[in-house]
């Protein structure tokens, strides 16, 4: 396959950055998207141009490190992560535009790499159950109804990639936030801190500069883990309830 790549290049956080165009050939359908970029980087290195910086680590769709806005869609056209996207989703002769996640809360570090530490701070603000090591009761002493356990698991599969933010026209991180609120709120262990958690985490979310949700739904469509919009409903409900509880 021969492709034209339009890639955002930006030397550092202060640089203004712009799109560069590269031609690349000899790409096989079996390559993953990131392997295609590896090939480009080999080529650039050979030509004496600095390789394009992009994030990835596990390359099996679970760590959440990879990102990339590919032709206007986070993680590209399939419901998966960029590292699991393969070139057979593209055609010979295609032009592919590759940009970093765009969010004020995710400043660009270099080229396609952004800083997602805002997500860590949202978790710090309350995304946990306070259980000091060694203080836990016997695991089976609190049964968890299977439906709750299943729902908690389903939303706990969020990989913190930030595609939801990248997709959202409001730059909101409500899907990520709602996934954590729902995960912990669904479990008996998560009840004691439930109301303070939702308030603290939402306040941190706003403080980081993420926008407010207007329920457009692009986040859920972009999410590689198919976290459903329910979690935002749950988030809203929990916040409303927290208000009633005087938080």
């Amino acid at each position, binding site marked *: 396959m021969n492709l034209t790549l339009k890639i955002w290049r930006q030397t550092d956080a202060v640089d203004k950055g712009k799109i560069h165009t590269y031609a690349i050939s000899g790409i096989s359908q079996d390559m993953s998207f990131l392997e295609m970029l590896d090939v480009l980087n080999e080529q650039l290195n050979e030509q004496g141009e600095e390789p394009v910086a992009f994030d990835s680590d596990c390359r099996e769709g679970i760590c959440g490190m990879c990102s990339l806005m590919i032709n206007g869609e986070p993680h590209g056209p399939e419901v998966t992560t960029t590292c699991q996207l393969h070139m057979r989703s593209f055609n010979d002769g295609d032009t592919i535009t590759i940009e970093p996640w765009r969010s004020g809360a995710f400043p660009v570090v270099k080229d396609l790499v952004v800083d997602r530490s805002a997500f860590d701070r949202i978790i710090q603000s309350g995304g946990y159950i306070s259980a000091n090591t060694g203080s836990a009761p016997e695991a089976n002493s609190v049964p968890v109804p*299977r439906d709750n356990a299943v729902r908690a698991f389903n939303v706990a599969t969020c990989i913190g990639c930030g595609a939801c933010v990248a997709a959202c026209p409001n730059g909101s991180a409500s899907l990520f936030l709602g996934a954590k609120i729902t995960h912990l709120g669904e479990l008996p262990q998560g009840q004691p801190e439930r109301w303070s958690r939702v308030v603290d985490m939402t306040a941190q979310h706003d403080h980081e500069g993420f926008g407010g949700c207007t329920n457009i739904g692009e986040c859920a469509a972009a999410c590689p883990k198919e976290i459903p919009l329910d979690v935002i409903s749950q988030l809203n409900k929990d916040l409303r309830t927290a208000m009633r509880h005087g938080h």
Partner: protein
Amino acid sequence: MTDMPDTTLTSDRSHDEPSPGQYDDAAGYYTLGEPIADTKAPAGDIADRWQTRKFEARLVNPANRRKLSIIIVGTGLAGGAAAATLGEAGYNVKSFCYQDSPRRAHSIAAQGGINAAKNYKEDGDSTHRLFYDTVKGGDYRSRESNVYRLAEVSTNIIDQCVAQGVPFAREYGGLLDNRSFGGVQVSRTFYARGQTGQQLLIGAYQAMERQVKLGTVTEYTRHEMLEVIVADGQARGIIARDMVTGEIETHLADVVVLASGGYGNVFYLSTNAMGSNVTAAWRAHRKGAYMANPCYTQIHPTCIPVSGDHQSKLTLMSESLRNDGRIWVPKKAEDCGKDPRDIPEEDRDYYLERIYPSFGNLVPRDIASRQAKNMCDEGRGVGPMVGDFRRGVYLDFKDAIARLGKDAIEEKYDNLLDMYERITGENPYEVPMRIYPAVHYVMGGLWVDYDLQSTIKGLFVTGEANFSDHGANRLGASALMQGLADGYFVLPHTIRDYLADGPFPEIGEDHPAVVEARADVEGRIEKFLSINGNRSVDSFHRELGHIMWEYCGMERTAEGLRKAIDMIRELKREFWSDLKVLGTADSLNQSLEKAGRVADFIELGELMCIDALNRRESCGGHFRGESQTEDGEALRHDDEFAYVAAWEWGGQDGTPILHKEELVYTAIEMKQRSYK
């Protein structure tokens, strides 16, 4: 391979070392040092040792803890759990990882599950049985006190994780579910669908983030540790590079913990993450920490095969697929390029069923892997040519689909088969899947005593980065157990005994050890950027991986290993003279990061080959062609090799020094494993 004594292959190097056994394959490549022993495990009944040690380990007054600082490199299960727990205890913790968030450590990729001797199924499980299974699974090459302790604390892990909100699979009654795993006869594996590692890591990560909020843990993400500072005989800090600004930072503390994961990426292609590296451990090794059993590598039989030279990483498919799939290759090499559906039944070789009639497709990991390699070496591999070779065997669900129906198979393996299709573009319900073994885990690592302290005072090592619990082979679902055991329940107790002597005298940035470490790091970086040769880092890494896989992979021979050592030495020379790294030191520079890692992998690769060369026996994941039974089974030599090989860095131009730790079993009897 031959079973004959091989005398023609001895090295042409000088033989002034004492000969430890009948053969000294590695003679000339190493120096024999003093034996080494673990001095921390208390004597007495194995079941009491941990209680005794916990009691004897000195305490640190809560008011003093704030004054004691701990550096933890790594935020996987081992590092994340330790940071959370030590933070809760009130110590002043600094946590480092190279990813942009602690939550992305490679523990996140573990699929299958985590073992614990809860005996919820009332099927006869117990601490002792888990201990026994783990030692046996490790082919009697692990230290029994450590393994017993692991089994002992395993149950606490599950309690802790449940309290943190880890959504384990549950039964309809709301209680925890278990499955059996990795060929043991009890059901003791706790799991969260196929994402157990992710859920456990998120639990540890959240606990750690809570401490960040409380101010006991400070996290340094996108920071790569490049050197350990050893001042006056004690580990007192690290040199790290801020990967965004390029700044070289000095971090000082009273104690340093390495939880930096495994080094499977020395093979270039593995199931590890792109950034998994040996740098943290290797830098410590060069400063005096011994590296134990570096050649013990686990190669997993069911991974998606390499599809071309561009391949950057391999993906694991759960072992459970072997329960229903049948493994075969064509009988005739000329059929290998054909559509498998056109190959008639009589021309197929179900080689595992043929060679191991009783175990069939369910032979242990190492056997299944080695036989797949043998088939491909014979020229009967399938799938696309990669280089001059087809690397793959079929895993066929046709019979299972006929027997159970497509729906049943879909329900059982759905997401795995989908993942396969996404990666290969082939529909496994119609075309047999192709699988091939891949490097998955390393049992070797930095040597530690019962306290998890390395041979550098004040340098503790946990998780996959140490060598202690899995011997020569790791059982499924026990790495997660070890990581969390070390992090939550072991290290926090043992480290206090060391810290009870602290705070240690302040050292400043002008301490000679600090100055030297910084200068080393800066010098190396400058060197990488100034070689200005022709070859990219990746090309060296790929070549190293090739050598390692070919000669230090599933089957090792003295001849091959010697050849590999020569090739690696040549590669090292070329690396340092023909490397091309563009960009600058003071910005995000991924080629520069990789250069540092590959430089260390090259040195590690050589040591792995020497270790493999020295160990002229087959045990667990280490298979020496020269040491097998008549029917090709691994053959241990307990009389000669029942020891841990702890290697000391012998200097840039010297040979590594071998220290042997004798393995003594008091609670268990050494037996030859048998699969017949």
